[in-house]
């Protein structure tokens, strides 16, 4: 059995989760403050991958990344970067695709913190970032944990987007979900079963971890 699709999937999920921690946390913090209408619009856009079929995202990425015109052409001509059929392209797609899983829980948790918490920190002479890093984040650990694990797990389950822009290249874009599909297409049900079981086991452990962790934190599991 070829394990490379599984390893590739784990690599993709790991990098995506790290990037979303870097991008998503400050972003969630920014969204959690104030109720401006444009913030609602932005939040709605970030949430779209939850409700849109992944094929829609895949379709637009395919058009956007095409080296023939627009953004894809500029990337291609300026940096010689091609995002379709490449691992970096999958990372970008996964970041968009899993963003609501990182931002949603973190933003909700930040909004439930009492305002006095940040104010006390400012009073003691801490900067905004120090406050965010040392005061706010430690107070939302359970949600942070949930968001991180679910972002990782959700990326493991990515399929439609990769089917559209991946090209099924072994070791580059042939992730586990695609390997399952491909094996079924070839009527190689034994391989399909192997990949499926491994995926099931990994994601099940992750989801259990979230539920157990949250039980001790006395919070609802998906908050």
């Amino acid at each position, binding site marked *: 059995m070829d394990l490379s699709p599984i390893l590739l999937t784990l690599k993709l999920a790991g990098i995506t989760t790290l990037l979303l921690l870097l991008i998503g946390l400050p972003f969630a913090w920014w969204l959690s403050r104030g109720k401006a209408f444009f913030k609602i619009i932005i939040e709605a856009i970030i949430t779209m991958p939850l409700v849109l079929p992944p094929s829609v995202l895949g379709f637009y990425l395919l058009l956007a*990344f*095409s080296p023939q015109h627009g953004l894809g052409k500029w990337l291609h001509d300026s940096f010689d970067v091609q995002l379709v059929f490449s691992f970096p392209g999958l990372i970008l797609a996964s970041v968009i695709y899993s963003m609501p899983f990182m931002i949603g829980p973190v933003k909700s948790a930040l909004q439930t913190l009492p305002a006095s918490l940040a104010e006390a920190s400012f009073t003691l002479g801490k900067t905004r970032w120090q406050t965010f890093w040392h005061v706010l984040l430690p107070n939302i650990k359970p949600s942070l944990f949930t968001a991180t694990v679910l972002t990782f797990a959700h990326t493991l389950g990515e399929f439609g987007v990769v089917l559209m822009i991946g090209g099924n290249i072994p070791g580059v874009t042939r992730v586990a979900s695609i390997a399952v*599909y491909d094996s079924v*297409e070839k009527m190689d049900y034994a391989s399909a079963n192997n990949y499926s079981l491994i995926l099931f086991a990994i994601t099940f452990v992750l989801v259990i971890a979230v539920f157990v962790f949250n039980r001790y934190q006395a919070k609802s599991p998906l908050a």
Partner: protein
Amino acid sequence: MKNEQYNNKPKKIIFFLLALFFCAAAPVFAQNIKVAAAANLQPVMEVLQKDFKQKTGISIDAVIGSSGKLVAQISNGAPFDVFLSADMDFPETLFKNGFAKQKPVVYALGSLIICSTQNIGFDNWERLLLSARVKKVAIANPAIAPYGKAAEQLLTGKGILDDVKPKTVYGESISQVNTYVTTGVVDVGFTTQSLVKEVADKTPLFYKVIDPKTYDPILQGIVILKHGADNANADKFYKYILSPAAKSIFKAYGYRVQ
């Protein structure tokens, strides 16, 4: 009481009308035949459907996919009446396993082409594939798409398969290869000649027909499936596909016929 009766009247009328509609519609629904067609036929299928409807009044529901995928679906009980494959092996397998009424018959010979949206000159396409000019080459998944198998065989024969592999992306069927070529996300793709005719007015394509001597002929076979065994319309469609009328349509789309 009276009120109730009065209330029931429209309901009864609607029920009666619905019943009438279904009785009238039943033969119409039964007339439709379900055809599973290999992805290379996508461009030509619409024309065949129209022509067949004109001649017989029978509508066709076509499902397009890679031959291998369709065989897997048929083997798992998909209710198709007729299967138009891109090769002979897949329908042969169906017949062997008892899913088809009879052995497959060739209805057309496919033409493999190399094609691009850019005018990059295909005179020496072997060298072109190896050059830095070409970054991505699309091929249909050889395991389930006969055109992909032919393309792989061609590259093996030219001794450049291993060199082209790093540039290769796999479409799940020839349809996906066509998408990759026409959107320009790949530089070149190996596909079917019928694509060129289909998109002629939308996307000008540059292509070269591959010398048929360099790969095994793509003999495309048709079978009537178990599900359509007693369906007179399926039989009509089968005969139509092998008729001169259909053959001339296939020819117009770049297929060769026997």
